[in-house]
């Protein structure tokens, strides 16, 4: 055999082997992270080894089908969020054929028009992959020309629409014109500055030594597992008052042996709303019900048209090309925010913030956050006016609900059946931060102050220790327009 022929055979063989490996990883099984076309945005990196969470189309689907399918998966996780936002640009606004001329400008029927994944080099805050002045596409001509509709907007540039605390593409619940007018004269701080839901009565607990002793006398834990401090802590908890016994978590079913370290499934069995909201945020999204499971080699081969693949081949594929299983919870090692050096390796299970036997509201609402987070805003919390209010309330010097913790703003509560229910999606009032205005800020502050404060990066960094140095004019303009209406202006 001539040397060139041998080299050709070797080249072809290696090419086929390489192509086969890539093909198998793409369409059958195996770790595909090496094939990522680019880093994902936001917290989506937690899903990177579960490609089918977003990429649900069958192999070789058409471009149109791919686009339709991938956009459908955005709503899998974000649908409730968009609904709650009373979305200003919902998909349904753009599907009507009369909007066809807009499809060529910014196609509002698809999330991926503005949020394209795996493109870190062009991804802006809010996971935006269009240029920041994208509003110009639809609001600069004809009936929609905002510069003609609003005298106040005549000289504004389109890169300021969504970057100045005035407008958001999706969520304008606290920014729409009539709301600005309605709350335009509110004082910066209410006379009775209290978070109403935080002032609700707490569930009953055993308080006296006799009540605790009576509870412990009837407890059903194995004698050798009952640490005295744990028992005392538990007896004084709301869990104990609600008749949750030791076995309720450590041996939740009759045929399951006692375990000293229950997994967090026992928490979510009872705390379903909290578990659901936790899985919607960055801390808990690994637990979202819709994250794809590892691929099944047999099903993958069947989808490719090989219905009766030999069992031996399937076993071999699963042995050597099995998909990695996503960890049940993220750890702080995977976080892409500033964390303390000693926080690494921390798992984000329920017990990271909630001690299993002892109730510590101060730790769950503040301490746990500051154990990990090390950005300016977090470091400035202790000593801030909000923290002072919390200390005063704890000391009995402030009314119930007057303290402001990390959780007050980032995990706000709502009333349910007379008690406070905590939203465990720590991102729900962020992205953009104006989402925080109505459910949180306006419990104590006026709308104008809240808009100005949240648009002031320096004030956010020092955890609101002072007054805003910026003023957003949207309320002024809205009030002026009510006093002297511009006839024919758009709503």
């Amino acid at each position, binding site marked *: 055999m001539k040397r060139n022929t041998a080299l050709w055979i070797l080249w072809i063989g290696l090419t086929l082997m390489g192509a086969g490996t890539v093909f198998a990883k793409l369409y059958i099984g195996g770790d595909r992270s090496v094939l990522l076309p680019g880093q994902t945005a936001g917290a989506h990196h937690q899903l990177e080894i579960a490609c089918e969470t977003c990429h649900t189309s069958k192999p070789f689907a058409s471009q149109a089908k791919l686009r339709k399918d991938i956009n459908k998966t955005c709503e899998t996780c974000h649908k409730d969020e968009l609904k709650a936002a009373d979305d200003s640009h919902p998909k349904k606004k753009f599907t009507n*054929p009369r909007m066809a001329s807009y*499809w060529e400008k910014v196609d509002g029927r698809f999330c991926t028009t503005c949020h394209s994944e795996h493109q870190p080099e062009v991804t802006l805050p809010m996971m935006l992959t269009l240029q920041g002045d994208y509003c110009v596409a639809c609001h600069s001509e004809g009936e929609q020309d905002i510069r003609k509709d609003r005298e106040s907007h005549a000289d504004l540039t389109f890169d300021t629409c969504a970057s100045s605390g005035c407008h958001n593409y999706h969520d304008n619940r606290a920014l729409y014109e009539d709301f600005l007018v309605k709350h335009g004269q509110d004082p910066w701080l209410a006379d009775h500055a209290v978070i109403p839901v935080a002032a609700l009565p707490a569930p009953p607990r055993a308080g006296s030594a006799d009540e605790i002793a009576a509870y412990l006398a009837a407890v059903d834990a194995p004698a050798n597992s009952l640490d005295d401090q744990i028992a005392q802590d538990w007896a004084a908890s709301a869990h104990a008052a609600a008749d949750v016994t030791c076995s309720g978590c450590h041996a939740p079913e009759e045929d399951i042996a006692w375990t000293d370290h229950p997994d967090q499934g026992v928490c979510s069995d009872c705390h379903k709303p909290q578990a659901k909201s936790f899985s919607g945020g960055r801390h808990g999204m690994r637990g979202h019900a819709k994250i794809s499971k590892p691929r099944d080699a047999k099903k993958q081969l069947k989808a490719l048209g090989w219905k009766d693949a030999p069992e031996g081949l399937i076993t071999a594929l699963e042995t050597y090309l099995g998909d990695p299983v996503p960890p049940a919870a993220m750890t702080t090692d995977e976080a892409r925010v500033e964390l303390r050096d000693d926080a690494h390796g921390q798992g984000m299970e329920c017990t990271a913030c909630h001690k299993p036997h002892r109730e510590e509201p101060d730790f769950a609402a503040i301490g746990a956050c500051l154990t990990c987070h090390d950005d300016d805003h977090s470091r400035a919390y202790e000593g801030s006016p909000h923290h002072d209010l919390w200390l005063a309330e704890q000391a009995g010097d402030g009314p119930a609900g007057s303290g402001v913790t990390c959780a007050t703003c980032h995990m706000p509560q709502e009333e349910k059946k007379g008690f406070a229910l905590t939203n465990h999606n720590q991102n729900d009032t962020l992205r953009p931060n104006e989402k925080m205005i109505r459910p949180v800020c306006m419990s104590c502050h006026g709308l104008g102050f809240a808009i100005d404060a949240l648009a002031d990066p320096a004030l956010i960094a020092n955890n609101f220790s002072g007054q805003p140095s910026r003023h957003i004019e949207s309320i002024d303009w809205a009030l002026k327009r009510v006093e002297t209406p511009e006839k024919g202006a*758009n709503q």
Partner: protein
Amino acid sequence: MMKKLTKIKAAMLCGAMAMGGTAAKAEMEYQQVSDLLHLVMSSDRTVYTRMIVNRLAVKEGVIKASEHFEDDKALVLPAQMFRFGAEMVAEETDAFSYSLLSLWPINKQNAPSTDLEKEGLEYIADNPGENFYGEEELGGVTYFTAFYPDVAVAEACTQCHNEHKDSPKTDFEGGDVMGGVVIRIPMDG
């Protein structure tokens, strides 16, 4: 006005109208289908406007009707009730779509956005009592498009439009054509 009317299989649109196996096979003209759809829309809308909004918000004054009905704990405006229905239909089918448009919209999103919309809305405003039918191509699809006058059927209609700060026309009277219901049906092909 479109003279030659093409046919559409009734079964595609009129499942609710089908009466037994034979009706499902019948064919109806686009215009007839559109007229029937409009009859349902118009009747429901008029009932809501007269018997709910006008009675409770204008005559008896026991509750407000507000564009921000959730914040104000108020009744949904008739135009919003109509739009929410159209959006719900759009989530279920693309066999037809409908909108409430006007030459004098409070919300400029509801101003005419295609040449045919402008022509149709002007025709029904200039010819009270008449409808307008046409064809247009949007996004690569040809549509049968019908325009029906939307008439001020109650005091609530004229009062709200005449007093709203964003209304370009403030002298509506009862019985005036205030805009039009536009129904689109994609044609075969």
